[in-house]
């Protein structure tokens, strides 16, 4: 029972990070019906920047902020040079390949200039030794902290989209872009903004994950973004609540399978879930089924 509980808690914690990634993916899916298939590289870039800067002696806090700022900029760039032109000229799937390519480009550049070895990631939030007692279990504070941070960010984001004008404008743009244009909404800004926000969320997710694993290398992030996909699809593309629940479900199931069957299957089961969900109910648990009049 203890083992089960520890797995569930660990699963919920990593799941919340998946949810964070998923919420980020949702943002751009809302505004442009696209998402960054190279998001993993964005996560990696943020984590590696933070790691490298702190290794130079810069404080953790500043390092994190710098890392996040860097990927925010990357968000603007990827929308401008990969997504927007691809949507215009490269057919319905060009953007998938263009964003995938951009991620590979980032990874390649990072490898080239910083080597492909794993570098240690500083302990930004607590240390490995810090534990807290929950229901008789010793749970790593690092795990708990990533859970808290993720949930906090998602809740804040939800609040922003619901209660601010900008948030309303984003939701409007997502529903009917032409209407948004004709009503004078700054659609270009909103689209750029959604990519910036998406990258920031990915970057934070990268930092939180690197926190747990302790190291980061240029190939970091690929599996994490896939987990984000699974969470988003399970919950229903476009739904924040869905992303949260989807992420936690994926996290928990993954850890349970990992604990009871095989650690390697931890991610594999998530992909199987992805395929099953897409086959049976593509709109996920909370998404809206798309009805067309043909």
């Amino acid at each position, binding site marked *: 029972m203890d083992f089960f509980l520890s797995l569930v808690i660990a699963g919920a914690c990593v799941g919340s990070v998946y949810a964070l990634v998923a919420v980020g993916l949702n943002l751009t899916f809302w505004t442009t019906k696209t998402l960054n298939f190279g998001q993993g590289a964005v996560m990696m870039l943020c984590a590696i920047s933070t790691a490298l800067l702190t290794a130079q002696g810069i404080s953790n806090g500043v390092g994190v902020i710098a890392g996040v700022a860097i990927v925010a900029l990357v968000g603007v760039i990827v929308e401008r040079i990969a997504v927007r032109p691809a949507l215009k000229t490269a057919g319905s799937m060009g953007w998938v390949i263009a964003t995938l390519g951009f991620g590979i480009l980032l990874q390649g550049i990072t490898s080239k200039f910083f080597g492909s070895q794993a570098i240690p990631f500083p302990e930004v939030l607590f240390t490995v030794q810090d534990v807290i007692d929950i229901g008789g279990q010793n749970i790593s504070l690092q795990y708990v902290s990533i859970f808290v941070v993720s949930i906090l960010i998602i809740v804040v984001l939800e609040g922003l989209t619901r209660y601010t004008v900008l948030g309303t404008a984003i939701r*409007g743009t997502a529903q009917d872009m032409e209407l948004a244009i004709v009503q004078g909404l*700054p659609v270009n800004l909103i689209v750029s903004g959604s990519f910036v926000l998406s990258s920031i969320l990915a970057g934070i997710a990268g930092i939180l994950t690197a926190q747990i694993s302790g190291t980061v290398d240029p190939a970091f992030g690929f599996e994490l973004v896939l987990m984000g996909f699974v969470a988003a699809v399970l919950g229903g593309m476009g739904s924040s609540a869905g992303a949260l629940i989807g992420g936690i479900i994926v996290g928990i199931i993954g850890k349970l399978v990992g604990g009871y069957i095989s650690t390697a299957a931890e991610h594999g089961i998530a992909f199987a879930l992805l395929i099953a969900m897409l086959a049976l109910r593509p709109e996920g648990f909370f998404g809206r089924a798309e009805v067309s009049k043909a």
Partner: protein
Amino acid sequence: MLEITDLSVSYGAIKAVKNFSGGAKDGLITAILGANGAGKSSLLRAISGLNLITSGSIKLDGTDITRLGAHERSRLGIAHAMEGRRLFRHLTVEENLRLAWRFGTRRVLLKPALDDVYARFPILAEKAKIHAGLLSGGQQQMMILSCATIRSPSVLLLDEPSLGLAPLITTQIYQFISDFAKSSNVAIMLSEQMAAIALKVSTDVCVLRQGASVFSGSKQSLIEQGRAGDLSSMYL
């Protein structure tokens, strides 16, 4: 004031609007009539900037806006209620109104503007927190018109405001449009398939047929020339 000179709009090879000239005067209503496929929506979309103009020009209060994008035209005060009762279905009525106000010209403060809308259409006040997609057709149209007017526009473009609405609601809506024209001095151009109701409130009329203008002038002259009865042949 809106002045359109020799406007042509094409989608690829489809000539949706051919050499249209016309406009709308401050405080008055111009009706654009015609059957479906005549080019009414294409014309309005070209004015608000959603469609590309192939040739010709558009002037807003003397300024040539032909080269401007939809966003800029919106900022200059062109409000367009598109065909098909377009609204943000998953936003509440109040959110729709706030958004429209926020990105309009904001000549009036939000609170008084909202109060105005709710006074005019009490049902909207009742449904303020309800998702716009759940309203009835008539209520939606009231909201859409209010979103257009709350922007304090200089020009108002209305695409088939009566589409799919019961006669009683249509009358209510047209009363609102007529009152608004007088009180705000905004230039209004509205398109309608249903000629009768549009003719009641308008001073100028253009009839389109397959993209071309088959009548353009004041309502007076339409009646005087005895061509009011001809309308059906202009359509059919």
